[in-house]
C-alpha cells in the first residue's frame, strides 16, 4: 500500500489537486508487465472512453484503488499521455504481482506443513505480496509463541523464477526455527509490602510459574496475556484501595534456552477510602434508591472495580446495577459517570453524574430472516411492542422466548437497535432470526415383541393447517403458522397403533390459549401358542381422544401456564384374557379431567437450557362415580374376596372355582366399567451455569395415584413404571414410564406398576457444539428413585441409586438421539447383588 501512496503523492505534486481540469477521456492504453488483456484492465479500472472527469481528481485515484483492490497488480500508475483540447489520453502502467510457484518449508515436521499452508493460504498460484509475507511471518511467530516457543524465528525468502513462461512467478522458502520451549521459572516482585508475592502471582490469571502440581494452566509465556496480567496486578491493588498502584518496570530475564524469569517492580501508593458520594442529575430515582443499588458507604476501602461494577457490570447483562436500573425502565439514552471531586487525605469524594435523557419508546419493531414462519406467529410473542417504554429486560426475554418456539436457531437470534433518536426519545427494534428445520421424520423397523415392528412417525412443528389445500404451499409441506401436527403409525403382527395429534398455540389468534387434540387407536391381538401367530379373533382395542386448552397466566407472574384437558379412552376386550383383566369379554371406560399448573422460564436454547427453572404440578381426576351410582362396593369387595378364597382354595370343586371366577370377572367388570381414580404429579428442574460451559440440572419428581373409594380400590391403569430409558413405547393401559437410568426398563416397579414414585436426579451437562445443524452435549448423572404400592411402604430415602455418563445429539430432522451408560448401585427387586452397568438408547425424548 505504501507504493500506492507514493505514486499518489508524486502525482499530486505534479498537478495540483485543486487545479484539476475537466477532460473527456480519449483512448486509454495499458503498458507494463502484465498478462491480462488491455480491455479487462480498462473495464476493471472503471475508466471508459468518453467519460467526463476532472484530472487530477477522484476518478483517477478511484481507478487506482480499484485495480489495487483486485490484489493482482503492483506498481499501478496512471498517466496522461497527451491532451487534445479537452480530450485526455491516459495510460495505465502496472505489473502483475508474482504468483507463488514452489513453497519450501524448513524446520517443521511434514504433518505440520499442510496446516501452515492452509492457515496462511500459501497455495500454489497465490499472489505474493509484501503483505502476504509479513502476515505469514507474524502469524507463525505468534502461533509458536502461544505454544511456549518464545524464541521462535521465522525467515521468508523469495526467489524469482526465470523460465519460458511469461507470468511472473517466485519460489518461496520458509525457514522456521522454533527453538526450545520456554517456561516461566519464577516471577518475582519488588516494591510490594501490602500484597504478598503469592497474592500478586495469583492475580495473574494466565501467566504462571512452573508448578508440577497445577494441571490446568501451563507456564507458557504469551506476551498479550502477560500484558493483560500486568493490568490484573493493578486491579488487585485497586480492589484493596490502592488506586495509585502502578508497575514501575518489568523485565524478562532469559535464564537459559528453556526458562525465563519475570521481574516486576511495583509502586503500591497509599490506601484510599470512599468519602461522600453524591448523585447529580437524578430525577427518576431518589438518592436513597440509588444508594441502595450502589451499596458502597462512606469510609469503605476504595475499590474502583467494585464501583464500576455497581454502576455498570459488563460481565453480567442482567446484573443488579444502576445502569440496568435505568435501562430496564426506558432510559436507553441514560449515561452514568462517576467523577472524583476530591481526594484529600486519601479520602475520595465522588460525584455520580447521571444524565437520564428522555425515556425511549419503541417506534417500529420488525423481524427479519423469517423465511418460513409467518409474521403473526412471531409478532405475538414479542414483548417489545411499538409505543412501549424501552426495557432491556423485555428485549432479553423476547430473545429467550423466540428461541423457545423451536422454529429458530436459539443461538442466532439477535436484537438490533436501529435509528436511536434521543431527541424524540424513540428507538427501532429489529429481531434478526434464522430458521431451523423443525420437522421430524421417524421411520424405523425392528424386531421386538415377537416380530417385526414398523413405525412411521411424522411430526411437523411449524405446520400451517390453513394451507393444506393450497398447492403452492407444499415446499415440501405447508409451514409457518406455528401449529404442531404429528402422525404416527406403528404395526406388527400383534398390534397396530394409529395416532394423530394437532395443536395450535394461539386459538383464534387473540390470546395465548393453546388448543390441542389427539386421537389414537390401538388394536392388539392375543398370541396364539399353537400357530405362533396373532389370533385375530381375540383382540383388545383401545380408542382414545383428548382435548386440551392451555392458557398463559399473568398472575403470579407471566411464566405460568394453566392447562386443562378432557380425555376419554375406551378399552374393549374381545375374548382376550391377560393378567390385566379378570374378564375376557368386556370393556372399560376412562373419562378424566386433567388440570395442571406449570411455570417455565428456562433459557435460552430449548435443547440446551443454561438457566431458569421449570415446574409442573398436575392433577388428573375421574368422576367419583361410587358416590352416586348406588353400587355397594364394600359388599362387592367382600363378595370378591369370598369368591377369591373359593378360587384359591385347593379343596373347592372345579365347578365352584369356575363359578367363583365368573363372579370375580363380573365384579371386576362392574368395578372397571368406568375407571375411578385421581392422580397427582409434581416435577421441578433447575438449570444453573456452573462455569462458562458447564450446566447443572437438579430435578425432582413425584407422583401419586389414588382411589376415592377404598373398597373399589386403586385401578390397575395409569400406574407408574420406574426404571430404564423412560421412553414411552407401546403401552396398553395409560401407564407412565419414568426414566431411571442404570436399571432395565420398568424393572423397579411391580409387574402391575407402582402407585407412588419419587425420583431425584442431578445432571451435569457440557456442550460440545451448539450449531443449528447439530447440537451435541455430553452429560454425567447421579440419580435415584423408587416406586411403591402404597403410602405405607413410602420411604423417600430408600431409593435405587445410579450414576453414569452419556451423550445427546440433536439434529433438526431427527430430533434427539442419545446413549447413556448407567451404573445401578442397588439390586433389582428380588435380587441381592447390585445391578451394575446398563446401556440406554434415547430416541426422540427431549427432556
Amino acid at each position, binding site marked *: 500500500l505504501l507504493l500506492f501512496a507514493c505514486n499518489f503523492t508524486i502525482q499530486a505534486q505534479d498537478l495540483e489537486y485543486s487545479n484539476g481540469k475537466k477532460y473527456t477521456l480519449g483512448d486509454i492504453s495499458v503498458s507494463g508487465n502484465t498478462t491480462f*488483456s488491455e480491455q*479487462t484492465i480498462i*473495464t476493471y479500472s472503471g475508466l*471508459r472512453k468518453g467519460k467526463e472527469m476532472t484530472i487530477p481528481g477522484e476518478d483517477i485515484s478511484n481507478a487506482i484503488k480499484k485495480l489495487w483492490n483486485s490484489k493482482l497488480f503492483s506498481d499501478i500508475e496512471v498517466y496522461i499521455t497527451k491532451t487534445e483540447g479537452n480530450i485526455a489520453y491516459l495510460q495505465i502502467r502496472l505489473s502483475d504481482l508474482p504468483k507463488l510457484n514452489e513453497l519450501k518449508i524448513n524446520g517443521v515436521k511434514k504433518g505440520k506443513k499442510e496446516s501452515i499452508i492452509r492457515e496462511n493460504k500459501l497455495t500454489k498460484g497465490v499472489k505474493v505480496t509484501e503483505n502476504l509475507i509479513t502476515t505469514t511471518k507474524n502469524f507463525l511467530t505468534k502461533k509458536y509463541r502461544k505454544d511456549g516457543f518464545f524464541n521462535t524465528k521465522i525467515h521468508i525468502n523469495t526467489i524469482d523464477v526465470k523460465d519460458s513462461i511469461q507470468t511472473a512467478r517466485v519460489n518461496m522458502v520458509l525457514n522456521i526455527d522454533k527453538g526450545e520451549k520456554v517456561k516461566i521459572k519464577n516471577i518475582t516482585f519488588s516494591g510490594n509490602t501490602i500484597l504478598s508475592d503469592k497474592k500478586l502471582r495469583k492475580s495473574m490469571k494466565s501467566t504462571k510459574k512452573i508448578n508440577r502440581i497445577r494441571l490446568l494452566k501451563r507456564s507458557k509465556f504469551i506476551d498479550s496475556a502477560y500484558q493483560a496480567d500486568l493490568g490484573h496486578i493493578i486491579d488487585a491493588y485497586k480492589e484493596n484501595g490502592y488506586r495509585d498502584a502502578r508497575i514501575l518496570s518489568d523485565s524478562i530475564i532469559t535464564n537459559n534456552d528453556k526458562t525465563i524469569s519475570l521481574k516486576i517492580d511495583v509502586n503500591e501508593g497509599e490506601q484510599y477510602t470512599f468519602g461522600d458520594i453524591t448523585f447529580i442529575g437524578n*430525577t*427518576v430515582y431518589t438518592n436513597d434508591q440509588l444508594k441502595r443499588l450502589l451499596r458502597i458507604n462512606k469510609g469503605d476501602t476504595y475499590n474502583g472495580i467494585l464501583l464500576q461494577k455497581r454502576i455498570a457490570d459488563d460481565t453480567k447483562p442482567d446484573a443488579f446495577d444502576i445502569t440496568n436500573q435505568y435501562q430496564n425502565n426506558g432510559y436507553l439514552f441514560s449515561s452514568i459517570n462517576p467523577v472524583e471531586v476530591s481526594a484529600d487525605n486519601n479520602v475520595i469524594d465522588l460525584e455520580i453524574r447521571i444524565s437520564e435523557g428522555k425515556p425511549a419508546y419503541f*417506534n*417500529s419493531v420488525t*423481524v*427479519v*430472516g*423469517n*423465511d*418460513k*414462519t*409467518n*409474521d*403473526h406467529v412471531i*409478532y*405475538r410473542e414479542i414483548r417489545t*411492542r*411499538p*409505543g*412501549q417504554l424501552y426495557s432491556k429486560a423485555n428485549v432479553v426475554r423476547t430473545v429467550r422466548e423466540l428461541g423457545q418456539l423451536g422454529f429458530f436457531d436459539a443461538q442466532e437470534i439477535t436484537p438490533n437497535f436501529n435509528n436511536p433518536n434521543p431527541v424524540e426519545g424513540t428507538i427501532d427494534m429489529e429481531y434478526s432470526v434464522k430458521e431451523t428445520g423443525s420437522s421430524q421424520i421417524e421411520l424405523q423397523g425392528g424386531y421386538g415383541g415377537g416380530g417385526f415392528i414398523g413405525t412411521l412417525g411424522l411430526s411437523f412443528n411449524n405446520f400451517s393447517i390453513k394451507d393444506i389445500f393450497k398447492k403452492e404451499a407444499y415446499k415440501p409441506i405447508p409451514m*409457518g403458522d406455528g401449529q404442531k401436527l404429528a402422525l404416527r403409525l406403528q404395526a406388527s403382527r400383534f398390534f397396530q397403533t394409529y395416532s394423530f395429534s394437532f395443536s395450535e398455540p394461539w386459538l383464534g*389468534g*387473540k*390470546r395465548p390459549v393453546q388448543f390441542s387434540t389427539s386421537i389414537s387407536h390401538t388394536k392388539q391381538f392375543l398370541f396364539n401358542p399353537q400357530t405362533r401367530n396373532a389370533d385375530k379373533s381375540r383382540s383388545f382395542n383401545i380408542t382414545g381422544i383428548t382435548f386440551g386448552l392451555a392458557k398463559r397466566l399473568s398472575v403470579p407472574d407471566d411464566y405460568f401456564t394453566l392447562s386443562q384437558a378432557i380425555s376419554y379412552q375406551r378399552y374393549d376386550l374381545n375374548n382376550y384374557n391377560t393378567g390385566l383383566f379378570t374378564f375376557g369379554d368386556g370393556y372399560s371406560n376412562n373419562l378424566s379431567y386433567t388440570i395442571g399448573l406449570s411455570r417455565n422460564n428456562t433459557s435460552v436454547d430449548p435443547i440446551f437450557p443454561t438457566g431458569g427453572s421449570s415446574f409442573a404440578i398436575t392433577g388428573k381426576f375421574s368422576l367419583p362415580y361410587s358416590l352416586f351410582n348406588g353400587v355397594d362396593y364394600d359388599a362387592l369387595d367382600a363378595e370378591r374376596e369370598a369368591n377369591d378364597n373359593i378360587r384359591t382354595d385347593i379343596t373347592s370343586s372345579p365347578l365352584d372355582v369356575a363359578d367363583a371366577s365368573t363372579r370375580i370377572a363380573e365384579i371386576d367388570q362392574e368395578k372397571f366399567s368406568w375407571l375411578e381414580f385421581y392422580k397427582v404429579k409434581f416435577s421441578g428442574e433447575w438449570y444453573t451455569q456452573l462455569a462458562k460451559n458447564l450446566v447443572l440440572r437438579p430435578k425432582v419428581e413425584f407422583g401419586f395415584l389414588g382411589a376415592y373409594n377404598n373398597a373399589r380400590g386403586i385401578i390397575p391403569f395409569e400406574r407408574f413404571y420406574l426404571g430404564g430409558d423412560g421412553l414411552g413405547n407401546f403401552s396398553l393401559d395409560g401407564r407412565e414410564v419414568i426414566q431411571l437410568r442404570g436399571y432395565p426398563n420398568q424393572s423397579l416397579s411391580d409387574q402391575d406398576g407402582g402407585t407412588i414414585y419419587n425420583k431425584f436426579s442431578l445432571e451435569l451437562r457440557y456442550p460440545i457444539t451448539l450449531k443449528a445443524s447439530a447440537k451435541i452435549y455430553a452429560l454425567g448423572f447421579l440419580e435415584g428413585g423408587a416406586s411403591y404400592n402404597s403410602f405405607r411402604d413410602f420411604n423417600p430415602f430408600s431409593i435405587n441409586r445410579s450414576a453414569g455418563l452419556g451423550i445427546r445429539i440433536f439434529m433438526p430432522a431427527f430430533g434427539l438421539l442419545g446413549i447413556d451408560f448407567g451404573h445401578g448401585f442397588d439390586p433389582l427387586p428380588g435380587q441381592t447383588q447390585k445391578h451394575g452397568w446398563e446401556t440406554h438408547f434415547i430416541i426422540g425424548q427431549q427432556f
Partner: protein
Amino acid sequence: CSEYQKALKADGEGAIAEKFKMGEALYKEGKFAKANRLFAQIVPDYRGKPQAEKLMYLYSNSFYQMKDYYVSGYQFERFASSYPKSEKLEEATFLSAKSAYMLSPVYTKDQTETKEAIEKLQEYINVYPDSEYASEASKLVQELDFKLEKKAYSIAKQYNHISDYPASVRSFDNFVFEFPGSVLREDALFYRLDSAYKLAMNSIEYKNSLNGIIPLKRNRLKEAKEYSESFVKSYINSKYLEDVNAMVADIDEELKGYSTKS
C-alpha cells in the same frame, strides 16, 4: 437424445463449438435445462472471447426460463456489468431485476428479497425510463410496494386483534406516515381509531407519573376523538362510517362527563 448425451461427453478440438451450436438449437426449441447443461460446460472456454457475450446471455436466460431465479438474477447482473455495450444490456438489466421480483416471498414472511427487487426495478426504471419494459417494471414495483404495505398493515392489525391497542395505534401511525398513498389507508385509519377507542374505553381514569397525576382516560378519549375526525374528513362515504359514528357517539358520551365535572 443420444446425440445430446454424446455432445455432453464430447471432448477435444471441435467439441466446444459443437456444444455451443447444439445448446443454441435446444434453447430455441425451448429445452432450457438441456441447453443449460451444455452452456455450463463451455462458459469457461469462451471467457474473454467475442462469442462469450451471446453465450452468457443465453446461459443467463436459460436459468431464468428454468425458474432458477436466484442464479438467473446473478448471471444477468454479471452479464450487465461485463458487457456494458451489449444491445441486450437493457433486457438483461430488466431480467435481473425481474428475477429478484420472482424471489420475493409472500408478505407474511421476511421481505429482504422484496426490498432488493424494488431497488433493482427502480434503478432500472431510472436508467431506462422509456424502455419497452418500463411499464411492466413499474407495475412490478407497485405490486411489491403493496406487499410491504400489506405486511405493515397486517402487523398493526394483529396488535389490534390481540388487544395490544397502544402498539396498534403506534403501528398504524407509522403505517399512515410511511405509506401515505396506500389503498389500505382507509382501513388503517379505521383500525387506528378502533384501537384508540378501545384503549380509551378500557382505560383507568388517572395515572401517576413524574409530572403529577395524568387524566389518562380523558386524554385517550380526546385522542380517539381526533382520530375519528381525521377519518371522517378523509372518507365521508366509508363502509366503516356506521361503526365510526357509533364510536364517536360513545366517545362524546364519555367526554360529556368530564366537561360537566370541570
